[in-house]
């Protein structure tokens, strides 16, 4: 057992740091820090995406022939950790981390040739059409229907919780192309051009005041059959593959550590009225830090297992659950730390574009919206209740 990085890994770490120093501008860093929502706006994530793409680093999970950087699990861990510590924006996951792997695994050569470079370059911005108003955690009950008409599907229905649909030029969606059998059958995985006639987008404002998600309506939207991934009716298989990617093996402890660090800064700054000297705040910080340490060690144990070709076991639900709980504990602590300043509600978005002076310090502005938006962490991507169901099944055989 060895807790230190070897010479190659340290060299890579330095390379990442150099890259960040060269590409993370102060404006970008400030904008990232002032983002309370779960996802970053394209005008922040975009420049960062392009810088990574230029370096060949934008798609860590992809095979080399598709444009991935062939990192070891340790390198990936180093990269994520350094980015988090430096406070870089995150890259929009819908292209690189979600639809990308599906196209790589199940797409036709034509689909790969067309879509993958556009994902890498950032030319395409994707959104995900999975959830529907009636479905929630029970995704397979989806009702949006695609009816074959010659070389096209005609799509009718609606999707909800569509992150950044208002920015995206493409959507990957699960739609119903057949009936009968289990509800998981008869679902197809379709790529949709968001400029297609018949698509309307209704913004949904979160309780944090952000416009991240939308409801998308399809009214006789025509999509070429060639935009289907894989076989008709097999979409559930592809969609599940993607969900595995979405849930599993994340490296989240470093982002949590960064977020906690921001609260520690709030609590300890020279501004008057900041409560780091209160024992109850100091020990709450320690409690959360210990939770992050435990999550980090678990991630490192998984990383080591992957690195040596072992199976890390069924822990991805646990990682998701703990990450969401710790994130919420951090945002809650943030609200408590700023005391009366939590009363100040600033409705303008994005916060980093705010030019007027506010009654509270700039670094306090995202605290309450982050807490509020952060309630979603235990809901989206499978609620905590669903995660516990899965953990009982996969970790304990119950």
């Amino acid at each position, binding site marked *: 057992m060895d807790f230190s990085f070897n010479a190659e890994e340290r060299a890579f770490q330095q390379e990442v740091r150099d890259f960040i120093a060269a590409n993370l501008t102060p404006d970008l860093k400030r904008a990232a820090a002032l983002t309370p929502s779960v996802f970053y706006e394209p005008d922040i994530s975009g420049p960062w995406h392009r810088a990574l793409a230029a370096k060949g680093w934008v798609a860590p999970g992809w095979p080399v022939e598709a444009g991935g950087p062939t990192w070891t699990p340790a390198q990936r861990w180093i990269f994520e950790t350094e980015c988090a510590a430096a406070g870089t924006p995150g890259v929009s996951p819908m292209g690189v981390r979600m639809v990308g792997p599906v196209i790589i695994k199940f797409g036709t050569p034509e689909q790969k040739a067309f879509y993958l470079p556009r994902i890498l370059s950032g030319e395409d911005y994707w959104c995900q059409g999975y*959830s529907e108003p*009636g479905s*929630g*955690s*029970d995704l397979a*009950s989806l009702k949006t229907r695609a009816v074959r008409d010659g070389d096209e599907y005609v799509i009718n229905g609606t999707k*909800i*919780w569509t992150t950044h649909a208002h920015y995206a030029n493409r959507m990957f969606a699960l739609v119903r192309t057949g009936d009968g059998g289990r509800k998981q059958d008869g679902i197809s995985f379709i790529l949709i051009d968001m400029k297609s006639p018949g698509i309307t987008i209704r913004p*949904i*404002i*979160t*309780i944090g005041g952000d416009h991240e*998600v939308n409801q998308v309506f399809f009214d006789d939207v025509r999509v070429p059959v060639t935009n289907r991934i894989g076989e008709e009716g097999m979409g559930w298989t592809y969609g599940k593959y993607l969900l595995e990617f979405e849930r599993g093996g994340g490296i989240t402890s470093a982002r949590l550590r960064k977020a906690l660090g921001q609260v520690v800064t709030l609590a300890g700054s020279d*501004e*008057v*009225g900041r*409560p780091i000297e*209160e024992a*109850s*705040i100091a020990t709450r910080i320690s409690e959360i830090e210990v939770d992050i340490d435990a999550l980090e060690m678990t991630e490192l144990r998984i990383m080591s297992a992957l690195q040596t070709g072992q199976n890390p076991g069924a822990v991805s639900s646990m990682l998701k659950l703990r990450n969401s709980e710790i994130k919420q504990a951090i945002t809650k602590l943030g*609200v*408590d730390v700023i*005391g*009366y*300043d*939590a*009363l*100040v*509600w*600033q*409705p303008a978005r994005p916060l980093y574009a705010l030019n007027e002076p*506010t*009654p509270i310090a700039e670094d306090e502005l995202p605290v*309450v919206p982050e*807490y*509020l*938006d952060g*309630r*979603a962490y*235990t*809901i*989206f991507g499978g*609620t*905590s*209740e669903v995660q*516990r169901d899965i953990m009982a099944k996969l970790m304990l055989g119950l």
Partner: protein
Amino acid sequence: MDLTATEEQRLLRESAERFVRTAYSPDARRKAAGQPDGFSRAVWAEFAELGWLALPLPDAHGGLGGGAVEVGILAEAFGSGLITEPYLSTVVLGAGLVADLGTEQQRATVLPEVAAGRSLLAFAHSERQARFDLADIATRAARDGADWVLDGTKIAVLDAPSADHLIVSARMAGDRRTPEGIALFVVPRQTAGLSLTPYDRLGGGRAASVKLDGVRVPDVVRLGGSDDALPAIERTVDRALAALCSEAVGMMAALLEATAAYTKTREQFGKPLAFNQAVRHRLADMASAVEEGRSMALRAALFADAPHPERIRAISGAKIKIGRGARFVAEQAVQLHGGMGVTEELEIGAYLKRVITFEALFGDVDHHLRRHALASGRLSSRAA
């Protein structure tokens, strides 16, 4: 010993609940939230009409002589409807301070105006460096001939933008945290040197930071001519806390009702959400938190005028219990509403925001745990 409501209390509850249900709507509240006042003057006039503004004021000055229990009954209904009108600022805090500490002349001037709905007040007390320590006042009141000159900065002054007068605490003597030497001045909002930075308040209503830059006022506006206003401030803030606790219980009960109803109808995997034992158990704990919260809010009201330390233990105890309970209920209400709970499309989030506000006002759970332990003689002020 009888903790059931009297006939008058029952009627008050019914009329308050009816008002919230019929005359007040989320849409109206949202519309008011966009206005500079953050509330509806028409609703305020109705409050005056219904006698609610006079409710806790002394009989001698146009009041009805109600106590903390009656205010709590109103506040619980206000909470269930997320009322944004400045009842706490004007009636409980503002008029409460004048009634507690004011001279006969001051009471006769201020209180009938409040009762009639013609005067709005705000309490400008908290300062940034103080966090939740009521005695930590750096704003100075310097004597200049017959006048006082006030200098300092106040934060979190609820409803200041709409107030006709601010009741400003300032230090005549002593160092930052000295209990003695604090006075209260009733200052017209338009006084020269007094400037506001107004803002929207989380969860509805308005507030402001207040800068006092050489604000000159005559000695006659000093409440009770007192240089030792802290005990009155503490008493009044404790009454405000009792009212806030009842308001929070109203929010908790509304959230519980909405969430229980939602889990009965919303289906997942072909079954109502409430089919899941984990959901039912969560709701059971929420129901328990509501019952316990109601008990503690009642305790706070019954002890609101009790002597120290019983008063402090009841008030801080309620703030602890309801602070924890309201946060739990509101967060779980969001959680059990799933994605919809995290959007502005339902009212659930509005309640959560108001709960956050409740928690911060006049001390969070940690603050009141220390205050409770101190009042119980189990913690030295050094260790706190």
